[in-house]
């Protein structure tokens, strides 16, 4: 009975990891087929660098992710501090978290309508603005968690000693929040890099992000370079996730010291 219990766990692991492992494995294929392995080679990693559509998509994605990270981290951090220290409104709390709960489709079409009403040209900026809406909710949540561990009496002491709100924020609050802010920024970056649905609606036709480029390639047939790209992206995602977790843990253990 004891070993039998592990069977569903292994089924889950095979189900979740088999597709990913096949892609990683096929990325080292010497042949052109995405299905038959014909010997080891790094050929497709080289071809990847030469594929203009994919590299352009990658550059666009990195620009969007960087923009989203900066915008959502600044706004989200300020909002988290504001919500924790300057208001008790449950309504504002709910509004701040709403983008994380709403279906991405709803965020996407709502913004598409705003863009078309004010005749905002779709491009990288429209995606950055859209991604920041939901990324900000996650940054706010992460920083607030961190803030609830931070010692508010230090801030009070700073204010009592005559420092203004701004100075207290920069000198006392911000250093305490640093690990949470970095974790939130990493989260925003990872979410933006992988985001498909909202970018699909708000990117327009000229400057597409990588997931959209891959999607349109999928429609016309599988290219072996995509295996190499997928492997590289998986590596980036896994690293970011593990780094984020480490940072959060580091932050927590310091907060408890």
């Amino acid at each position, binding site marked *: 009975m004891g070993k039998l219990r592990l069977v569903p766990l292994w089924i889950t692991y095979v189900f979740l990891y088999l597709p990913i492992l096949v892609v990683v494995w096929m990325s080292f294929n010497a042949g052109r087929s995405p299905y038959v392995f014909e010997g080891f080679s790094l050929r497709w990693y080289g071809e990847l660098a030469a594929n203009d559509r994919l590299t352009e998509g990658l550059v666009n994605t990195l620009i969007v992710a960087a923009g989203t990270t900066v915008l959502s981290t600044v*706004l989200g951090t300020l909002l988290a501090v504001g919500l924790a220290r300057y208001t008790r409104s449950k309504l504002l709390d709910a509004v701040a978290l709403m983008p994380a709960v709403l279906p991405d489709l709803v965020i996407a079409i709502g913004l598409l*309508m705003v863009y078309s009403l004010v005749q905002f040209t779709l491009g990288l900026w429209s995606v950055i603005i859209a991604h920041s809406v939901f990324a900000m909710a996650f940054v706010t949540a992460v920083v607030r968690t961190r803030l609830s561990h931070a010692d508010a009496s230090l801030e009070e002491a700073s204010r009592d000693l005559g420092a203004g709100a701004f100075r207290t924020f920069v000198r006392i609050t911000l250093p305490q929040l640093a690990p949470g802010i970095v974790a939130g920024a990493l989260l925003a970056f990872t979410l933006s890099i992988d985001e498909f649905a909202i970018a699909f609606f708000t990117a327009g036709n000229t400057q597409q992000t990588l997931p959209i480029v891959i*999607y349109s390639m999928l429609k016309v047939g599988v290219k072996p370079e995509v295996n190499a790209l997928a492997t590289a992206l998986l590596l980036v995602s896994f690293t970011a996730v593990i780094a984020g977790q480490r940072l959060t843990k580091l932050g927590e253990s310091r907060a408890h010291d």
Partner: protein
Amino acid sequence: MRSRPRFWAASAFLGPGLLYLLAFLLIPLALIFGFTVFKRGRFGGIVYEYTAENFARLFDPLYLGVVVDSLKLAGITTLLALLLGYPTAYAIARLPHKWRTIALVAVVLPFLTSFIIRMYALIILMSGPGLINSALGTELELLYHEGAIVTGLLYCYLPLMVLPLYTAIERLDPQLREASGNLGANAFTTFRRVTFPLTLPGVLTGCMFVFVPSFGNFAVPEILGGSKSLMVGNLVQTAFLKERDYPFGSTLALALIAVLLVLLLIQAKVARRG
């Protein structure tokens, strides 16, 4: 006299974020609500004349059928996720302590990787000449039908089922199971009468976590479903990107939100009673 600077500080912290949310979240939502009562212009714009036509169209059997299909596909996905997720979470919760976190992170990790890459991986695996068919020596049509959509949704959201279930099961007092056994119940009865009812809140949360994103999905059916299979999300997508019919697209989106809200309310009610 401290209230004045406090007001400015509060505005400085709260202002930028809230203005951003007003402009890019609340106003868009208001537009979705508002546009449902207007007419569509001939070339895709909006004519500001009131009409109930959009809501009437919603009950056209053609669209209603898609809503029912979406409920069905999301329901099947949720059921399968529960059937696989429950024993998985149970197995993790009964692992030795040091293995639990690793086992759990291993379940969640794929969820945190690129969505499109995961879809791509499924296509490589399931396509005509793909690994499954070549390993089995078969020529099964695994892609581009409703079964493929369910597989894709399950692949995406299974981790969201396992997480809350694990939390619920891990919290269970093992003595309850022992007591049930000592009183003569067999393993199945113990599960049915003790373990499962006590983990019901986790079951409900997990089901919501899987059902909600599945029901509102457009990307998975778009990529894995082929041209025939449709879900509500695809109708919204077509209305917005192909037909430029913003009023009807908004009405569909509103219907989608309404269904999800009703489900959330039911869940909250059941959870409170439990």
